[in-house]
């Protein structure tokens, strides 16, 4: 007898949540508490020793956050997840579990500007060395592999360039190199792309964006696919070697196919400390309940806007992989058939100045540094999110000086288009 599998929308509403044991509350309560009482000394000791299931202290875990974790793990098809304070915290905690000082990881150049910064400067101070590769030229990943390589990092749909990454091709390189593939799935969300189905071993989210979806809460999630054997050649001592502070238990031996998520919690979250507020977890959970509906509307609106822009005489180019003729259109059809996301860029014939004018003339679009809100958003990456990069790196990341980035919201598409129309005319 095989179990029946509920669909994505059912999981988005139910996974991880259950009526509260004491009150029967149906919505997930916000367990706004720092700590949880122990039954007795033995219970306390077994919780601290990772021997029993239960709550200790909200830096290590919280029942509201746990619902969010299980929900995202279920939507991504992973074995477990960990919620943290931001998308960037998810990245630090992930790499801390994998890298020792002097180690390398390979990352696609086509990344959110903040991630490029984090990898280039702050990670270097930990002795973690990023080696850049080009997602448009898969062979560059193969050439970047060295004996010190510990992981490969890509975005599924890349911010801001609107490129689509060939996850399966890069996963094959990761597998051959014996390292995990980490995919930042922020811009696609699991509604559009489930990277684990294409070979990812770890999936990361800035839950700040489409998962939360309402522009009100910063958060991040790490999903363990349960696919990687951390003990095969002792390249990942945090997972394969005895942990002195936990009485010598080995995390992979004890926790099997969700050991990575546990390592991120009981080492990275415990010691680096970027815990997510239960209130933010609640807001993000509420957002996720409508993820499939919102994400489809985001995509449909974005496609309509991209089509309209590509026929506008003032527009030089529209970089939206959902348009036929776009260089990523085939990859978008393969990996993201329900739609190509809602974040894309375009350039104006009037160059940098026309871009700056457009941003200031818009009345419905908000000029701010975020994506994945109900509201339509606009920004000029070269002078903001990507301003710390060199001109060459800006262009390679899809954020050259003439580029405007939009994140299309859930307003009526006629109103979104009318706002662009008036701003381009003004």
């Amino acid at each position, binding site marked *: 007898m095989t179990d029946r599998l509920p669909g994505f929308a059912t999981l988005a509403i*139910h996974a991880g949540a259950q009526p509260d044991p004491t009150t029967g509350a149906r919505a997930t309560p916000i367990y706004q508490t720092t700590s949880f009482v122990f039954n007795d000394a033995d219970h306390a000791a077994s919780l601290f020793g990772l021997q029993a299931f239960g709550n200790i202290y909200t830096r290590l875990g919280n029942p509201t956050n746990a619902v969010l974790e299980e929900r995202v793990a279920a939507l991504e098809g992973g074995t477990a997840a960990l919620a943290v304070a931001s998308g960037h915290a998810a990245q630090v905690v992930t790499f801390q579990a994998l890298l020792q000082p002097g180690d390398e990881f390979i990352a696609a150049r086509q990344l959110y500007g903040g991630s490029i910064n984090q990898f280039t400067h702050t990670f270097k101070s930990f002795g973690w060395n990023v080696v850049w590769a080009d997602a448009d030229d898969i062979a560059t990943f193969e050439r970047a592999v060295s004996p010190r390589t510990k992981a490969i990092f890509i975005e599924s749909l890349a911010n801001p360039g609107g490129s689509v990454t060939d996850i399966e091709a890069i996963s094959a390189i990761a597998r051959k190199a014996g390292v995990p593939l980490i995919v930042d799935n922020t811009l696609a969300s699991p509604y559009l792309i489930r990277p684990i189905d294409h070979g990812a071993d770890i999936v990361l989210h800035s839950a700040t964006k489409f998962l939360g979806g309402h522009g009100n809460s910063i958060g991040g999630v790490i999903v363990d696919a349960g696919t990687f054997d951390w003990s095969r050649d002792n390249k990942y001592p945090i997972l394969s070697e005895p942990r002195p502070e936990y009485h010598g238990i080995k995390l992979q031996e004890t926790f099997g196919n969700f050991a990575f998520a546990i390592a991120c919690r009981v080492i990275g979250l415990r010691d680096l400390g970027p815990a997510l507020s239960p209130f933010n977890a609640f807001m993000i959970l509420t957002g996720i309940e409508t993820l499939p509906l919102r994400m489809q509307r985001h995509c449909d609106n974005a496609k309509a806007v991209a089509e309209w822009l590509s026929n506008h005489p003032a527009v030089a180019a529209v970089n939206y992989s959902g348009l036929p003729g776009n260089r990523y259109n085939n990859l978008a059809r393969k990996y993201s058939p329900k739609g190509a996301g809602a974040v894309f860029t375009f350039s104006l014939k009037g160059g940098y100045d026309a871009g700056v004018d457009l941003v200031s003339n818009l009345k419905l679009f908000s000029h701010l540094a975020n994506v994945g809100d109900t509201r339509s958003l606009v920004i000029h990456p070269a002078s903001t999110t990507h301003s710390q990069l060199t001109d060459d790196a800006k262009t390679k990341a899809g954020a050259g000086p003439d580029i405007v980035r939009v994140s299309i919201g859930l307003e009526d598409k006629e109103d979104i288009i009318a706002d662009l129309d008036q701003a381009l005319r003004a």
Partner: protein
Amino acid sequence: MNHDTYDDSYIREILNGVKTIAMVGASPVNVRPSYFAFKYLAQRGYDMIPVNPGQVGKSLVGKPFVASLRDIDRPIDMVDIFRNSEAALPLVEEALALNPLPKVIWMQLGVRNDEAAAKAEAAGLKVVMNRCPKIEYGRLSSEISWMGVNSRTLSSKRAPVPTQGMRLSLNRVSVGGGGTNAADRAARNKNDPA
């Protein structure tokens, strides 16, 4: 039978059905995984028997150690093997000499012996390999989900507050079924390292 992935219904039927569990290789050292798996299952209402010839005369959470399966004075439903994979074959042979026969051979996380499994199945026993009954029980009852583990189950019923000795309901709606793409890939990666 495929031992890379198991349907939740298969695991659920086993954990709902068995009462008496002999854990071979149980350790009295309270930081070993076998100790805390034993203790957890005892707290969830199973009749647990620790088997370890080096520990006879001692007890584990109040249950006296026995030297071997033969020394157990009552019928056992399940043998949980907390030893290395090579030890599983002679242990299965020993289990198959018991009367009445146990119903289930369970090999712990990291323990897999296909020859032993085939022997047990030929004698009509159910076999689970490379899984932890504590994790599976915690998962199917969703008690584990404080750790962000994907229980692959759903329920709209009020969750119970677990107490000492209480059996939790394992009968939630199953989501993953066990045979997910990721689980298949994990099994392939293990069997065929690149």
